[in-house]
């Protein structure tokens, strides 16, 4: 972020999602896991979408995954994103299983690929909110 007030839409954490956003603020990826069926869950919910159990616990995830699909947004819909185009919007599949919508940062546009390994990159957009974005895992060339 460069100077000035953050004008983009912000998440409004609620009783179910607050631990997730507290996690990102601490630069840690926290997911719900169902104590009954053992599956990891994203987005945060009051009940498990796999078995309807209410016995959900928060666990710390590895923070890595791969790009399931991506696009380069070249025209902003929300005016606050106008200065950012072109930027990468992606669905990342975490190693724990769940998928989430995010941005790929710290990568050249033509470098981004489906199946690319990525790692959580925390963007402190306001004092209260840190968005969970992802960057390529550095190291040996991956396809």
């Amino acid at each position, binding site marked *: 972020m460069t100077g000035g007030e953050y004008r983009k*839409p912000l998440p409004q954490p609620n009783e179910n999602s607050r631990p997730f956003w507290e996690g990102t603020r601490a630069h840690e990826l926290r997911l719900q896991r169902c104590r009954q069926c053992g599956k990891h869950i994203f987005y945060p919910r009051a009940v498990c979408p796999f078995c309807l159990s209410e016995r959900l616990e928060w666990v710390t995830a590895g923070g890595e995954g791969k790009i399931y699909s991506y*696009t380069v947004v070249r025209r902003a819909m929300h005016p606050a994103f106008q200065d950012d185009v072109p930027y990468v*919007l992606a669905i990342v599949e975490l190693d724990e299983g769940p998928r989430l919508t995010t941005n790929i940062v710290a990568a050249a546009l033509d470098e981004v690929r489906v199946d690319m390994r990525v790692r959580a990159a925390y963007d402190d957009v306001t004092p209260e909110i840190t968005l969970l974005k992802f960057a390529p895992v550095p190291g040996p060339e991956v396809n």
Partner: protein
Amino acid sequence: MTLKRAAAITGIGEMKPARSPDGKTALGIMAEVSRLAMLDAGLEPKDVDGLLIGPPITEMVPMWPSVLGEYLGVHPSYLNVVDLGGAAAAGMVWRAAAAIAAGQCRTVLCVTGEASDIETFYTPRPRRSAQLPYREFEVPYGPMGVNSGYALIAQRHMFEHGTTPRQLAKIAVDQRTNACANPDALFFDRPITIDDVLASPLVVDPLHLLEIVMPCTGGAAFVVVSPEVARRAPQPAVWLLGAGEHATHMMLSQSRNITTSPIAVSAPRAFKMAGVSPGDVDLVSVYDCYTITVLVTLEDAGFCPKGRGGPFVEEHDLTYRGDLPLNTHGGQLSFGQPGLAGGASHVTEAVRQLQGRAGDRQRPNCELAFVNGNGGTMSEQASLVLGR
């Protein structure tokens, strides 16, 4: 109980799409197309005892059916809003038939309409509540409405199956050829080539501008009636032969497989009820908000195997003169997308073709049509088989 031949469409009314409202309101448009549909079906307001509405996207207000019923002097005994996005119109057809089969009504007016343009449509609308998962977990990352969702599907389809930009572009080109035979289409008389599509600006990779639907103003209505009412109709009845519906997600990130849509469930149900298969149909009239939508629909409805959509559209002529006529009105890509009336255009075009009223683009001996409505990001699907 089956819905096969439980009801028929006997009248349609449609407004020629316009780039901007020019003073028209959604209510006024819905009233106008309702009037046309009732006249077409030989009905007066007193004959209508059911009213279904696919609500205007830019004017979400409570109780649309009561508002429109009062405006038109229609006093229905069955009212509902069918909030399925682009699947609303196809969804209304079988909902109307189900209510008729249950004996709750005999004549159901189904209405869509939108007074909008590109600027209005893409201007963020204030929402009372931000407490939806989409607002919390997607909007902060800057999606371009649903455009980016379909781009994600296209990108993944290319990765899994080797689908090419040229194959997707072919869909837009064939549909434009169809629009050039439809004076009501927004892009009438403006033919394009595959190179034109690929030379148009990339908006959300890998989708180009000419692969993306244009929001506009317009409306469409149709009347679904009981077999008894259908026998007295001035136009040939178009029968509901099969229907299926299915949904798996709202946000694309929550779909376990974004290259296979819920059409893989809804379409086989519709075909099974009708007792026919994809190879039997004379007309394909399917939702086309983007080129990739058509490709995935053809695969999931069983016109070709999964992953073969690219070669399939290259091997077949999708124009009204071709071996697999698809979206003969031009599709929404070339006809225009007036809100949920865009989805309704696939129903009205199928009715026109089956009735033999499609003018220069009429298919000879058109007896069986497959119609698909799609809402969200391949989220909600309503599939129909219609026939004479």
